[in-house]
């Protein structure tokens, strides 16, 4: 079982390394996580505004960056992963169809 999981993980890593879309998805997810952690740490429970109601510039810049990364991750990560899987499957199907045609010919 351990060997199978290891093999699967190595195959997945190799697939990610070989696919530009998957590499981008991983990078986006990592940026989202990192900025989320940083924003959470910096803003604490106070959010973007000071007790007086004025915007705290440093937290606001990080917050804006985090929200942009969050939107990118929420939309792009599923798209990139689904696109990469679909491309791999379609390529495989196209290859097998090509092989079948050649052997028929």
């Amino acid at each position, binding site marked *: 079982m351990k060997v199978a999981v290891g093999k699967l993980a190595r195959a997945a890593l190799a697939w990610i390394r070989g696919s530009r879309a998957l590499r981008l998805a991983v990078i986006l997810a990592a940026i989202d996580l990192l900025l989320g952690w940083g*924003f*959470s740490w910096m*803003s604490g429970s106070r*959010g973007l505004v000071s007790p*007086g109601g004025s915007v705290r510039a440093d937290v606001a810049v990080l917050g804006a960056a*985090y929200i942009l990364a969050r939107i990118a991750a929420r939309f792009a990560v599923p798209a990139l992963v*689904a*696109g990469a899987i*679909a*491309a791999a499957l379609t390529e495989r199907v196209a290859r097998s169809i090509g092989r079948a045609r050649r052997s028929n010919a």
Partner: protein
Amino acid sequence: MTGRAWVRLCACACALLVTRIATPAWCGQDAHRWFDGDPALSGKLAEGLIAFEATDDRVRAAPSSDRFSGEWALVTHQMIALGLAQLALAHPEQRERLAPEITRAALKSFRPEMRGFGTRAWGGEDAMASLGGPHGHAYLSYAALAIGMARVLDPAFPRDVAVLHDALIAAYERRLLASLTGLIETYPGEAYPTDCAAVAGAIAVHGRATGKDHSRVLARWAALVRKTQIDPASGLVVQRMDAWSGKAHDAPRGSGTALGAYFAGFADRSVAGELAAGLFRHEATLWGFGAIREYAPGHQGVGDVDSGPVLLGVSVSATGFALAPARAHGYRDAFERLYRTTDLFGAPETSDGSLHFLSGGPIGNAMLLAMLTSGPELAP
């Protein structure tokens, strides 16, 4: 078309399809639970805000130049009190535990330093020191509404503050009965239908707390809202008006209508329902996400302190406030779409057993607690 082009086309189609399904599902995973009133979820948000009030007490007790006060603080404490009160009404078993917390937040919203912005706007005239006068001071209705809900739910509510609350409500009732437009001023020369909905809500809740009959003033206010404050073409209320003539000083707008629908619900369920129906005619939707357009057709602007930034015609405040009428009046689909947008931009995070929306801060989280739990407060 080459084989490679087919592969790309197929990958793009799958990517679009999966994003259309997965992203709204990801962002809306808690929408059903909020709509159905899952106490585990609302309890976590409430705990975060109760902790905020405890921290605020400690800061208030210490010498500090950066105390939480003014308009934003008034609204924060008011919304915490209203949100907790709605939870106590929805889950009566929590009432005993929440009642002191509701009173604590409501009392803070009623402190003189919280209404300093209004006192300054009226040239130094304090709302509570001029109850016999003609000036509206409608901004203080936000605190009056919170105090009213605390009186409904907390049998130990302090008697001295209840007396002040009685006097404020009597002044509001007299001013509203004297108004030909159903409006009383917030600031000199300026009346906000949203604030007047809060005045009506505060009067109604006072009736629930004390048994006093306010039906005459509430019926008159409801009739005048329909006659003078709702724009018949759009169904939205005008954001800012002249209190005496009822002349519009601003456009019919989503943020005022959404918050007005929430406040009106405390006073008159049918007026609130009409405002909600008008509001949801202005929902913009895209890929399962929803947002409320700020300006009625034919009007435009970049937004202000009421609406927050207006991007692509939709506003942050209108979208957030609209969660309350969506839940209270049973617009489940609209609620889910609005919640997905709230989740995407609000970034909810759970830590140490409490939930908070990262980009909201205290005021955003307080408002979301009140909006996401709206319903039990509706007038019968």
